[in-house]
């Protein structure tokens, strides 16, 4: 690990720690309103001021960070598992299975990611409870984000299928299922790890895009997407610079993941 990657680890650990300690660090819950102090600038009571309905912005940033930092990896795990199962199995089985899986993958890949997301999100009910909206948003990211990974895993599993050790194991009479789980899957692990790390920043950014467009996590639950929506009403950058804090945090977190990603790529190589 180079110093930048170590720094990225420290930054992510600090952010995660702070977001998990939101119950103690935040002056109040993310939905508590201070009706006498709406749209207030930063003060000793409200470190990042309050939003237009009087909710403490610092508290919302902490809780929003928790949601994005915990659920994006969960969605990444789901998409990686799906990619492993679909891509890995199709590559291992070969022939028509590979062709069929790749045709479906191509279909998904031919659609721009955001188009696919908003179409799928629109199919789900929009007026759901905040908790359900959180789960729907991140589950959708996980369920639709497997295609690129499946393609890579299919190619890797395909090359493993024709490798000497797999042929030898097959000749020794090892059943196909055991061969797949014991010999092929462990060799896909570095690619799976890389795929998992690649997906996290992609999902964080996608949630932010959906949130700003009003198709993400529902109010009053905060997420980076809904917090960034506040930038919509800004007249100038210098007027209320504290509103840029969620954006700065988002950039710092995604940059940290990019640094860690280069480490994963080194491992996968």
């Amino acid at each position, binding site marked *: 690990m180079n110093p930048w990657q170590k720094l990225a680890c420290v930054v992510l650990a600090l952010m995660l720690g702070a977001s998990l300690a939101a119950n103690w660090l935040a002056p109040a819950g993310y939905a508590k309103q201070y009706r006498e102090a709406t749209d207030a600038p930063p003060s000793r009571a409200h470190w990042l001021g309050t939003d237009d309905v009087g909710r403490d912005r610092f508290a919302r940033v902490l809780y929003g960070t928790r949601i994005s930092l915990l659920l994006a990896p969960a969605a990444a795990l789901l998409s990686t598992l799906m990619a492993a199962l679909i891509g890995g199995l199709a590559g291992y089985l070969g022939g028509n299975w590979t062709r069929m899986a790749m045709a479906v993958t191509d279909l998904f890949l*031919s659609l721009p990611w955001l*188009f696919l997301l908003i179409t799928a999100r629109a199919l789900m009910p929009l007026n759901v409870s905040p908790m359900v909206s959180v789960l729907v948003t991140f589950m959708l990211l996980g369920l639709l984000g497997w295609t690129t990974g499946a393609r890579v895993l299919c190619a890797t599993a395909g090359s493993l299928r024709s490798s000497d050790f797999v042929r030898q194991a097959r000749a020794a009479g090892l059943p196909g299922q055991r061969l797949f789980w014991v010999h092929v899957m462990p060799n896909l692990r570095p690619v799976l790890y890389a795929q998992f790390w690649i997906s996290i920043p992609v999902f964080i950014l996608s949630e932010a895009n959906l949130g700003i467009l009003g198709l993400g996590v529902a109010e009053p639950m905060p997420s980076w997407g809904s917090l960034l929506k506040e930038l919509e009403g800004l007249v100038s950058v210098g007027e209320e610079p504290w509103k840029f804090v969620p954006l700065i945090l988002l950039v710092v977190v995604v940059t940290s993941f990019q640094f860690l990603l280069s480490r994963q790529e080194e491992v996968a190589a």
Partner: protein
Amino acid sequence: MLRKQIAGHALSLVATVLLGGLLSATLVRLAPGFETDEHALDPHLNGASLQALREARHQDRNILWFYLSYMKRAVHGDFGTSLSLGQPVRTLLRERAPLTLRLLILGLGLAWAAALTLALTATWLRLAAFDALTTLVSGAFLCIPAAVLALLSVLWNVPGALAIALVVFPRVYRYSRNLLAKSYSQPHITTAKAKGLGEARILFWHVVPVVAPQLLAVAGVSVSMAVGAAIPVEALCGLAGIGQLAWQAALARDLPLLVNITILVTLVTLLANSGADVIGHMVRRQEA
């Protein structure tokens, strides 16, 4: 060979669109609320009209039938009527397509001009500081969501095309920079340098032609990126294009409109990718 490749692309394009259409039609059919028709609530309708409406809906219950009738109408240019806007989808698409097209051409043009200029300069100069600076700038834009870039373009009163350019630029720059650097380290370049060829001649005669087919492939993919970025940019910058229409359709759960836009977008991205593939193949053949 080229004809065979074009035929292959055309076949896969038709198959993908048909499969995508079936998938979309199935999703529309299965989505909650399909069974209800707000026209049936009209108090002016008599019993016979209500019965006719119910029968029309009943036919659509079978997914395959629904898909076939949808395709039949689509072949004749009838893409249905938008539920939220009450206008024919065809009219809506025709009205909004020119703006999106203009935005995409301008955005892609800007992104490619900036990315190629910087990548070629970085390859030519080979200065660590310049490389670090451009990597930092492109990396920073990679970490900002497209919707935030759109909001910032509104804030700073710059055209929406610039936001699209900033979404596409870092990806194109990084890829072309890596391609050029890799090509520059090839043995034939070392030989050319040893023979005393000028930097400009090496770059434009021996490096760029080698990476041209791969760059064309990225050009195809960059269309897809730009189309994706057009949704937040048009929605947040108040530009009445197809991206804004898709966003409005998603918020209003106007599925027929959304499905038609999705199929159209799939067709555009597939055409762009297939076109880039075919041109890349032609370039490779010419080089050979």
